[in-house]
């Protein structure tokens, strides 16, 4: 069921990064109230084990240089201004990646404290589930972000015949 991941597809992804963002997609992260676990996983993306630079991704502290915004947390209302400013500070074309269950509306319900998810404040392009999403999941999410073709979740059914393994 899962898409065959071969060197070719990986090459295709790199090409698409190159095509859209000149071989360098710069990522700015935005913590809108996460529990700090998502942040740790994102930091590990740059660690030797995952080394996202090999795929043409880079972290940048300045939203001015960022093409992609990784938002974690349930978007706390007290953070609206900062979130808006950060998004507006980014040049187009820009992508927003909602990262982690909080950002996808998993952990918090909308209330006086939080919006409950990133979706209704920022125009999200890619949704990465997980609590927290492992660096592998994050990598896949980033690849989805730069390459809309890598669309496999549609095929997943989460139905397992044949009982428990």
């Amino acid at each position: 069921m899962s898409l065959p991941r071969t060197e070719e597809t990986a090459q295709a992804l790199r090409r698409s990064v190159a095509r859209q963002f000149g071989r360098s997609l710069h990522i700015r992260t935005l913590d809108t109230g996460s529990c700090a676990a998502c942040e740790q996983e994102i930091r590990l993306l740059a660690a030797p084990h995952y080394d996202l630079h090999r795929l043409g991704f880079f972290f940048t502290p300045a939203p001015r240089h960022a093409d992609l915004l990784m938002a974690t947390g349930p978007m706390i209302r007290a953070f609206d201004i900062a979130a808006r400013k950060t998004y507006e500070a980014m040049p187009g074309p820009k992508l927003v990646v909602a990262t982690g269950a909080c950002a996808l509306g998993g952990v918090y319900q909308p209330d006086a404290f939080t919006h409950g998810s990133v979706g209704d404040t920022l125009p999200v392009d890619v949704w990465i589930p997980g609590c927290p999403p492992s660096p592998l999941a994050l990598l896949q999410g980033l690849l989805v972000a730069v390459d809309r073709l890598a669309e496999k979740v549609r095929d997943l059914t989460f139905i397992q015949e044949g009982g428990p393994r």
Partner: protein
Amino acid sequence: MPLWFLRGLRRGVVTTRYPGQPDASAAQLPTPPAFRPAALTRDLADRLAAICPSWALTRNGDVLFFDAGACTACGRCREAAPGAVTASGEFELAATDPAHLVKRIPLLGEGGS
């Protein structure tokens, strides 16, 4: 610095081949549940929906809706109904549309469980 250089050489490469090749460590990650419609009944579905701490499960008629995005893979549903719920082993879940993350699970189980 030479010390670090030598360390690096001795350490060798640890970088994953993903996405070129699958990564072994993925096997141990917590993953969202997969359901056996045959073992799912309405009231089991309701129990699971009540157990789920992150509102990932909702029952509508004979369909159990599962929001893989809201799921934290905490495993509570799996523990509650080992027969009906298993780990899916899926971790590549990123989607460009939240609708793609919501799944319809038909309830095919007979009677109460």
